[in-house]
């Protein structure tokens, strides 16, 4: 007699479908990135994806796990895309390959693979990159890549010398540096008036990439892939902190709008801090996790030495996630305190 447990009806869903939808949600952001900054990002995505799949296959083989089942789940691809999107678009190929392989082998599989990693693998990759190669990780194009695709590929693969003009910084980093160098002689408002760098509200080009992430994120929320808690808490907390400091001294601190649409804020809020494996799972836990990540990201990017703070903010919150979950268990049906 066969044995098959109830329920016999199942919702049409799978891990690979979830991961595919996350990738789809990244497409608007990637499109804006490729259009406004440069198609080099597509090359980076390909490099990262191939590396991730290769590393995943290698470890699965070593661990004697079913290859097709886990390669097909798509989780490595999501990690790869997030790595490509957080690294500078002209980062040398070996940097992306090393970081991606490290993410898959160490951040993911050493802990047990899919579903077991305590830290977001993509953010571990970013942390490894910025700690080991701070200079390369800080070279961001300021005003879009004014060069043909062949030259972009050349730079990535080291065939064309890295031109000094490329060694810029993100608008976020540029602002921080300019404020430091100016020592109070320029206010934020004057600096941001330079639309060549800072665009309309948060960095030329980059602001629209962020809008792409926002659209993708809202779509994921609408599809119930994520709940509203983490992104809302992330953006809310960052807005409150940035807003308070901005109101306190608008000459020294940029507006919340600038911060929300700069750097990795929206990518982090919708795609990174919402990672269920390394994040919180209870509703209240998600609010704390999102708010914590938003606050820490602001503090690190404004007062710290790194160009952006998303990666370390998320990793720090990953550390706290188990405790937060433990302390925020929701009351169950019939056991809610009515008083």
């Amino acid at each position: 007699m066969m044995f098959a447990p109830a329920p016999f009806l199942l919702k049409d869903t799978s891990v690979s479908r979830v991961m595919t939808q996350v990738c789809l949600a990244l497409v608007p952001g990637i499109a804006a990135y490729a259009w406004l900054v440069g198609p080099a990002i597509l090359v980076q995505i390909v490099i990262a994806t191939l590396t991730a799949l290769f590393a995943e296959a290698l470890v699965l083989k070593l661990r004697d796990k079913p290859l097709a089942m886990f390669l097909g789940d798509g989780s490595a691809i999501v990690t790869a895309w997030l790595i490509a999107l957080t690294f500078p678009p002209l980062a040398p190929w070996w940097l992306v390959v090393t970081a991606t392989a490290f993410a898959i082998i160490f951040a993911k599989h050493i802990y047990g693979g899919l579903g077991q990693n305590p830290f977001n693998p993509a953010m571990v990759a970013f942390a490894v990159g910025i700690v080991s190669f701070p200079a390369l990780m800080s070279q961001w194009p300021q005003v879009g890549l004014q060069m043909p695709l062949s030259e972009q590929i050349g730079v990535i693969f080291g065939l064309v010398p890295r031109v000094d003009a490329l060694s810029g910084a993100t608008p976020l980093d540029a602002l921080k540096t300019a404020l430091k160098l100016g020592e109070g002689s320029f206010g934020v408002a004057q600096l941001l008036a330079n639309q060549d760098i800072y665009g309309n509200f948060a960095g030329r080009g980059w602001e629209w990439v962020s809008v792409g992430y926002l659209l993708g994120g809202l779509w994921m929320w609408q599809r119930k892939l994520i709940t509203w808690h983490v992104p809302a808490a992330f953006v809310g907390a960052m807005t409150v902190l940035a807003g308070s400091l901005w109101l306190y001294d608008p000459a020294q601190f940029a507006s919340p709008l600038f911060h929300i649409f700069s750097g990795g804020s929206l990518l982090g809020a919708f795609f990174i801090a919402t990672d269920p494996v390394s994040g919180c799972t209870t509703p209240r836990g998600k609010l704390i996790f999102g708010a914590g990540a938003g606050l820490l990201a602001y503090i690190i990017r404004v007062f710290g030495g790194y160009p952006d703070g998303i990666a370390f903010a998320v990793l720090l919150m990953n550390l706290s996630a188990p405790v937060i979950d433990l302390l925020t268990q929701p009351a169950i049906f019939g056991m809610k305190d009515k008083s």
Partner: protein
Amino acid sequence: MLMNLFKFKGGVKPPTNKTQSVGLPIAKAPLPSRLVVPLHQSIGGTPRPVVQAGDKVLKGQLIGEADGWISAAVHAPTSGTVVDVAMHVQPHPSGLDAMCVVIEPDGRDEWIAREPVDYATLTQEEVRERLQQAGVVGLGGAVFPTHGKLTASKTVPMDELIINGAECEPFITCDDLLMRERADEVVQGIAIFRDLLRPKKVLIGIEDNKPEAAEAMRTAVKAAGEDFAVVQVPTLYPAGGAKQLIRVLTGKEVPAAKRSTDLGVQCFNVATAYTAWRAIAHGEPVVSRLVTVTGNVGEPRNYEVLIGTPMNEVLALAQPKADTDGIVMGGPMMGFLVPDMTVPVVKATNCLIAHSEQLFPPKAPEMPCIRCGSCAQACPHELQPFEMYWFARAKNFGKTQEYHIFDCIECGCCSFVCPSRIPLVQYFRFAKSEIWARERDKNAADGAKTRFEFKQEREAREKAEKAEKLAKAAAAQAAKKAAEAAAVAAAETASPTAEAAVAPAPAAETPAVATAPAIDADKATKMATIQAAMERAKAQREAAQPKNTEVQAPAIQLEIAEIDARRQAAGVETAAPANDQKTE
């Protein structure tokens, strides 16, 4: 009527698959070749068989007598001959056997003398007893003896009586058809429950995908002149779970640890109300029930089936397709594949689904949990299934209980939505049964320990008593000898009799005790060790327990110390005259 409905969290919307089986009216299933009627068909005590092989029985005749209050009688579903009272495989996922009465129908389907009564002439107690004797149990699936739920709480006023016609499981339509075709009798049955429980209001909950049933019930309620409210609730699985329906209709949440009557609510299935009415007003015990026969069949339909009919014979009526490879009893969310196609229909059998791989494709392999939280969002009891899953998998059952595993109603919503295809409900059933097994083992071990300790204590006591007896006998003998010696001495020196008689006595006692029970010396040492061990254990026990003597005021403690010191000093002084007895 419009009323404020509440929502329960979670729930899922599987395809309902109900339209297939509502096209045709209820049909009566023909008499089967043989009936296998299990005695244990309800929660509670197993009824005792009152017939034996060879007995002629009539339809409705008692064959199993209720065992205790929470138990319900079982009756012959048709007239015929009892051919056997024996163990047969049950419609239960375990595939275990249980005691059944096997009846060969005589084809006449002849009733016993039925006694219809007007229940208004009966006392409440008599109504409950009649229901128990008629084998009326909850037909929604839980088969709890109905009479056991018909006593209102003495302390909490009964606010609402909920009648469950939600029928939220996909595929099942037997309650739907019952309400469409026999609404009048359902309403009469509800009136019995109402009169026993005296609630402030009666709410009949029906999912809004059954407008015909709701309409029929409304008409019947009006015709009966009752004030029951027929409420259409949103179609959302598991809205027909008793706790969910209570929540939707009243806003009250019944936790696992409480009974619904503690919150002033009671809930019955519509089919239960129908059978209650038949039992009281027609004197007909529960010998048949409506069964939806659907799934991989040519003609899905609802049948009135005699309890004990082999399932394959029922399925055959609906023309199962060639690739049918099993029967699911119950719905696709909570049902199970029966271990054998010939197992009998029982009171809990509301639906038979012909299973095929095309209808229910085999599940994709289980992937690791990615903590996506879909299960927690789908759980109608607001549990954290993925956390319980981790701990159940790790066999950390204490933790599963901390995450309220016993509040899980096994509705299957979590498994339904899981993208990793983890059979979560199975993990929870596993954990629950392990916890129950451990509880049983622990109780058994505790019992054995108590018995062992009692035996040890008794043996020690007996040994001590024996030794004491022997010592006494030896002492008596020595005293006798001493007395004789004294008598001899008295004969020699007439005057200081008294002192001489007393003085050598204790001297003689010492060697006497030492020599006479010499065989007991070993025993005595053993006993002393046991005694000492017991003393130690006792001291430890006492030390572990707080005592008020430990917190004596320092003044009193000082006084005790002084007394002790004085005693000791006195002991040293009196030690000189070699009068040892005083220091005992």
